[in-house]
C-alpha cells in the first residue's frame, strides 16, 4: 500500500483526493460521517487549486492556515516526476517540512496531483452573526472579541468593506444550546462596544477575483481595508484573526492618482513586519537570496527523476 493511494478514512478523519476533484465532492461524502474540510468557500473549486490558492480562508480563524490542514501531497515536480511529501497522520516531523513549504510556495515549483486533507467534526447547528456600527466601534468590538476565550471556539471572524459600509461576521457551530450561549455572550460584547448584531444565513463568500492580497498584523489590517475602500472604492474582505485581506479594486483603479503608490507603501510596511502584499499591479521585489534559492531549487527539482 502506498501512503498516497486514494482513500477516505472517516474514523481517522482524513482523505487522499485527486487534486482535480471538487472539494464539495469530498465534503458531501464527509458530511455523512459528521465531518467536513472546513477551509472551503466554493464547493466547486478543485482541491489542488484550493490548497495552493489562498493561504487562509474564513475558517482559518479556528482551524489554522491551509498549510496546517494539508497532511501530505503527491506533487508533480518541474521534471514531470511525482514526489511524495508529508503523509496521512496529523503530526509528522519526519524530514524537512516540505508539505507546508509547497502549500505556501508550491505554485513556483509544480502542482499537486493528490492531496491528503485533515477533516474535522461538523457540529449540528451553524450560527452566523452580522455585526454593524461605525468603523471605530467595530474596531473596539473586534479588539474586545479577540481578547475573549471565544476565539478558541468561533469558526470564522471576517470583515467586509464596501463603500462606506463595514460589517463583521462571526460564524459559530455547536448544538442548539451551545449556539444560544454563544449568541448571548456575543451580544454582551457587542453591547459594550455599541455595535448591533443580527443573525444572517451564512458567511459572505470571499471574492475570488481579489487582485490585491495583503498579509499584515491584526492592528494594521482593518485600517488598511478601510483606507483602500474609502480612497479608491472597490470592496475588501478581511480574515480578521489572520490579518489577511483580499481587496477587489474598481476596474480602473490603477489609473487613479496615488493608488499604485499606496499599494507600494502598504507592501513596504507589510514586508517590514514580515508580511507581504501580492498583486499583479506591482512588479515583485523579492530579495536576491530568495530569487536565487527559488531558481536553484527549481533547477534541481527539474533534474530529479
Amino acid at each position: 500500500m502506498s501512503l498516497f493511494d486514494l482513500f477516505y478514512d472517516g474514523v481517522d478523519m482524513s482523505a487522499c483526493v485527486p487534486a482535480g476533484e471538487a472539494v464539495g465532492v469530498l465534503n458531501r461524502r464527509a458530511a455523512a460521517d459528521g465531518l467536513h474540510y472546513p477551509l472551503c468557500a466554493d464547493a466547486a473549486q478543485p482541491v489542488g487549486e484550493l490548497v495552493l490558492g489562498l493561504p487562509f480562508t474564513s475558517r482559518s480563524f479556528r482551524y489554522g492556515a491551509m498549510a496546517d490542514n494539508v497532511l501530505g501531497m503527491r506533487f508533480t515536480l518541474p521534471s514531470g516526476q511525482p514526489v511524495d511529501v508529508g503523509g496521512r497522520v496529523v503530526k509528522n516531523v519526519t524530514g524537512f517540512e516540505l508539505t507546508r513549504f509547497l502549500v505556501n510556495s508550491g505554485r513556483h515549483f509544480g502542482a499537486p496531483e493528490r492531496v491528503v486533507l485533515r477533516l474535522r467534526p461538523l457540529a449540528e447547528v451553524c450560527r452566523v452573526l452580522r455585526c454593524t456600527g461605525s468603523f471605530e466601534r467595530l474596531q473596539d468590538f473586534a479588539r474586545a472579541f479577540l481578547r475573549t476565550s471565544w476565539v478558541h471556539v468561533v469558526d470564522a471572524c471576517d470583515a467586509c468593506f464596501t463603500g462606506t459600509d463595514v460589517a463583521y461576521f462571526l460564524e459559530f457551530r455547536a448544538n442548539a444550546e451551545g449556539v444560544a450561549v454563544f449568541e448571548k455572550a456575543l451580544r454582551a460584547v457587542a453591547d459594550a462596544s455599541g455595535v448591533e448584531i443580527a443573525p444572517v444565513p451564512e458567511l459572505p463568500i470571499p471574492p475570488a477575483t481579489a487582485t490585491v492580497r495583503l498579509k499584515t498584523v491584526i492592528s494594521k489590517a482593518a485600517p488598511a481595508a478601510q483606507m483602500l475602500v474609502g480612497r479608491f472604492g472597490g470592496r475588501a474582505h478581511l480574515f480578521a484573526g489572520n490579518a489577511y485581506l483580499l481587496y477587489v479594486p474598481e476596474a480602473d483603479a490603477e489609473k487613479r492618482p496615488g493608488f499604485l503608490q499606496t499599494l507600494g507603501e502598504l507592501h513596504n510596511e507589510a514586508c517590514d513586519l514580515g508580511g507581504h502584499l501580492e498583486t499583479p499591479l506591482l512588479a515583485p521585489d523579492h530579495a536576491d537570496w530568495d530569487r536565487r534559492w527559488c531558481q536553484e531549487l527549481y533547477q534541481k527539482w527539474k533534474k530529479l527523476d
Partner: protein
Amino acid sequence: MESPGRSAWRSEWTRGLVAIAGAARVLTDRASLINYENDALGFHRFRPDCVVIPDGSEELAALVRYARDAALPYTVRGSGTGLSGGSVAAEGGLILHLSRLKRILEVNVADQYCVVEPGVVLHRLNEHLEAHGLFYPPDPSSGYASTLGGNVAENAGGIRCFKYGVTANYVLGVEALLLDGRLLRFGGPAGGLGRAAADWRALMVGSEGMLATFTRLWLRLKPLPEKVWTFLATFARLEDAADMIVQLVHHPAFPVAIEFVDNKVVKLVEASPMAAGLDPDSWLLVVELDGPEPLVDLQARELEELLRRGKTRKVERTSDKEERLKLWKARKVAAGLMGQVSPDFFIQDAVIPRSCLGEVLRFIYEEAEKEGIHALNVFHAGDGNLHPNFLFDARNHDETEKIHRLGHRLMEKVVACGGTLSGEHGIGNDKMEYIGLIFGPREIALQRSLLDLFNPNHQLNPGKVFPLRSYVGCCVPEKP
C-alpha cells in the same frame, strides 16, 4: 588518548574561540565536555571537541563565522532535552550552547505575538505571558527545561496539540544565521513571506539544527482560556479505551487533550509513593476541555455523558485547579517512575492513523513480550502519537540489541499502517536508519536538495536525519 595531530589542531582553534567568547565560556576540559556527550535520549554518545556558550547573537555570529573559516563542524544546542540525539556532536567539533540567549524581547498584546531569543525556556515564556492574559499553546512536557529554539528546530508537540496544533502553527518568523555568516529574517510579526516568493520559514521549523541557527523567533500567542475542565476515565480493556479515543476525536467540542495511560503504568503508579487512588488494573484516558466558561460548562456535561455511555469503569471530572492536577497525576509522574524502576528506558515516538491504535498497541505488547522486555505506554492519543517506553539496561548488550530490534519492528509496523517515524521528537541520529522506510530515493533526493542550498558540506550538525551526512570539508585529523 588523543593523537598529537588532533591535540595541536584543537589548541589552535581554541585560541581563536577564546579570543571571541573569553576563556570562561569556552569549555574544553573533559569534565565539562562529558555533559554534552548526549541529549536526553541517553545513548549515542559523542564527545565534542569544544563547547562555547555565546553571550548574545553578535557573539554567536562571530563564532559561526569562525567555525566556518576554521572548517569546524558545529552543532547548536538548546537545553539538550531532545529525544532523538539531535544536539550531539556526531563528528566531534564544536557545540554552541545557546542558554545565554534568553531574553524575551517583546510581547505585543494587540497583535498577539511575542519576540524571543532562542534560549528562552518555554515555561518562562508562559509565566511571563500570564500577566498579559495570553499564552503560547504548544506544550512539550519538557517545557520546564527545553528552549524555544529547540522546540522550533524539532517542531515540538505536546499534550495540548490535539486542539491547538504543533509548534509550526505558531511560528510567525525566524531570524537565522546561515552557514555563510548571513543573518536573514524569514517572516516576522505578520507571519507572511516578507520579501520572498517561497516560505523559507516553513523549512526552518523542524529542521533539526541542519539548515541554520535561529537567533530570534516571532511566536503567535492566544488569549488564556477562561475555564478548563479535566476528565479522568478508567477502562477495564484496551479496546474499550481505544473505541472511546475515536469517539472523543470526533466530538465537535474538540477537547484540548486526549491522553492515554496503559494498565502497566497505572500499576506502577499505584505501587509507588505517588499512588493516585486508581484501580491498578485499569487503562486510563485523561481528557481536557477549555474555552469560554458558559460554553465549556455545557460541553463538559456532554463529554461526561459520552464517557459514561462508553465501557468506562469510572469517570471523574473537575474544573478546580488543584483537583485537576490530581486527575493528571498518573500521567505526569509516569516518566519519572519508569526512570526509577529501570536503569534505562527508551522512549519511542511514532504516529499512526487513530483507526489503528488498538492494533498497534497490541503489536507492541506482543513483540516486547517475545523479547522479554517491559513495554509501557503513555501517549498523545488524540493525535495518534505513540510513545512506547521500553525498559532495559544499557550495560547489557543483549538487552540493547533487543531494544534495537523492537524499535525496528515497531517502525515497520507503523509505516505499514500508514503512519510516520516521528510526531514530535525528530529523527536526529537515532532514527536515521529508518528514513528509507518512509522515503523513496526521489523523496530523499528532494529532501537533500534543501541541504544543498543551506548546508552543502554538512558542516552544520553533521551525521543527523539522513544517512551519509558527513562533514566533507573537515580538517579534523581523524574523526572520533
